[in-house]
């Protein structure tokens, strides 16, 4: 690609994909999630995780948080294509490395083991705000909140303490400080 000053200094193939968190505010109406998700699958974009719920009952607004990977050009297209959807009000986009944004994911772990192992399991979770939601003499359910890769590691490491089932949400995001998404 010789002597290209303008158009191809930005060629898609040469760019490195980054992980982005895309937050979308939509009218909470039938089919809206299918529109957003269908846009991703139809255009070949990637979804790593997805979290969606209504956040404003009065105005009927849902907030969708999508973790995706893509080159800057792809991420730009994702945002612009999302903005074109009729029920979409606004779109925000953050890099995962962004220090000004909090990303959290929640996980529920079920352990079946003896008391000693169950205690060790709880101990191992202590950096991630563990809460015991259910307990019997041979099992318990622990809730933690953490980053995606921390939960990945935890699910691997906790196997030895009798982890039998994992349920986790997609990531949700919020800016730090008094700033809000615009």
């Amino acid at each position, binding site marked *: 690609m*010789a002597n290209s000053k*303008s158009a*191809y200094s*930005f060629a898609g193939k040469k760019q490195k994909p980054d992980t982005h968190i895309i937050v979308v505010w939509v009218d909470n109406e039938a089919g809206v999630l299918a529109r957003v998700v269908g846009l991703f699958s139809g255009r070949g974009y990637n979804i790593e995780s997805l979290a969606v719920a209504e956040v404003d009952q009065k105005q009927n607004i849902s907030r969708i948080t999508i973790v995706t990977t893509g080159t800057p050009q792809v991420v730009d297209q994702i945002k612009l294509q999302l*903005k074109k959807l009729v029920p979409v009000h606004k779109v925000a986009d953050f890099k995962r490395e962004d220090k000004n944004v909090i990303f959290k994911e929640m996980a529920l772990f079920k352990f079946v083991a003896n008391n000693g192992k169950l205690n060790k399991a709880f101990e191992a979770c202590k950096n991630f705000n563990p809460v015991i939601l259910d307990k019997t003499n041979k099992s318990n359910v622990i809730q933690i909140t953490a980053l995606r890769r921390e939960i990945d590691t935890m699910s691997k490491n906790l196997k030895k303490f009798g982890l039998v089932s994992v349920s986790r949400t997609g990531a949700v995001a919020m800016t730090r400080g008094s700033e809000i998404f615009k």
Partner: protein
Amino acid sequence: MPKLYSGAEIVFKCLEDQNVSHIFGYPGGAVLPIYDELKNFNSIKHILVRHEQGAGHAAEGYARSTGKPGVLLVTSGPGATNAVTALTDAYMDSVPLVCITGQVPTHLIGTDAFQECDTTGITRPCTKHNWLVKDINDLAEVMHKAFEVATTGRPGPVLVDIPKDIQFQKSKYKNYKKNKKLNGKSHDNYTQKNIDELINLISKAKKPIFYTGGGVINSGTKASELLRELVYTTGFPITSTLQGLGCFPADDNQFLGMLGMHGTYEANNAMYSCDLMINVGARFDDRITGKIDEFSPKSKKVHIDIDPSSINKNVKVDLAIVGDIKSVLTSTLKTFKKSKNNFSKSNKHQISNWWEQIQKWRSKRSLDYIGSEETIKPQYAIERLYELTKDKDTYITTEVGQHQMWAAQHYKFNKPNRWMTSGGLGTMGYGLPAAVGVQIAHPKKLVIDIAGEASVLMTMQEMSTAVQYNLPIKIFILNNEYMGMVRQWQELLHDKNYSESYTAALPDFVKMAEAYGCVGIRAKTPEELDDKIIEMLNTDRPVIFDCLVDKQENCFPMIPSGKPHNQMLLGPKDQKEKKITGKGRTLV
């Protein structure tokens, strides 16, 4: 107490308030209440097609030739799925359509009822937006919003799915106030600074070119006028995409012809070598750019488009101006007049070398072909058709294939909205029903579908529609018995293995015309061609014109896929030297 209307009545009241005069459709179980109401609304005329795809393309033809949205009305299940091709076609080519579909009653939705399908699910990726109306009180607002979404910003198709029970239920009707912005979406996002920057680039350019597209046509006839003014003021050369033909007069000296895969040598070389490219309402489609890594490597690129997602999608640009073409061109001309009053004089010198270069490319005469006295060359047929119809205000539709490219190359368009062709989706069978829609919108005008014999057979049944409504459309078939473009690619890429591209057992088109109750004409030799065309033009009824053309002719010039603009194939001699190899073979 305000009057209550049934859902079916509300549908028509909305159409009336939207000034809809024609709808194209086909009845069926789930839309019967709407069809029953048709008799009470005299201002709306229903055109009965023979297949729902035909309804969609007819509505497209209507929309593209008038600038108004086209409306179609079809039933649930197969009615809706048959319309999907036309909706996708309209989506790709940015044509405003409102499709109303019937649906099974709400209590049967999800039970796999007779003629039930997930219409909104199926059409979600091929519409700008769609609605399933589950509450009669929402119907009026949804209908009006449908028209608003279809026509604002970058136009496109929308769909409203109405269950049968909703068509019977009653509600109040109120007209709808158009919002200033649809969910906060605005379409003019440019500033005066952008315009100043554009003018600065224009005044510095030594090798400029305008590259214009369908966006100019979609922005209205005024946009075409403004474009002409700007092109004349600057003295720059201009080329157009397939969809943009007609927004600048094709017989003007500043027009370089169409660009892209089958564009002219001068247009493509000018695109490759320019230092300033001003894209007005085009989208850097792959048929235009060729090999994207080597697309116009030395130019500054300006992109004017109403759709922000078109900017930097395929090609990174240096200056993006997001807005309606008409409004952007108005501001540009206004600023131009203020700051550079004598521009065209001072500029002439600056771009004179560029024009000299362009004349050299032009002298290659890339659209020339080898004539024949025995067989009708397809290019010759189009040339004669043009010469014999150019004094009339003619509307041309096409199918998809070689004939479409020859029509684009050899028929000269001087006005917008006169050229209806399926570019984005490339739908064979588009042209005949589109001609029906165009003729409905312009009953007194000459409407010709330039067709191929393979394409036209895909929607041939719509001849019956043309006969029913006395639509004197002319179906001008360039008959070479092959799917010509498929055969051309097989010749170039697959060692002449003409796998399944020859149509054996073609019907006799003249007899077929008679069977439909219209007129069939056949031309076999160049000698008789003119007389036969004149006979066609003098027939005030639908005509199927079977023009038997050279079976081996290929469409040139051509940029082979995987090659940049400056490596065109100019004709049969050229292609041996520039054989398509490697990666180019996998592209389409």
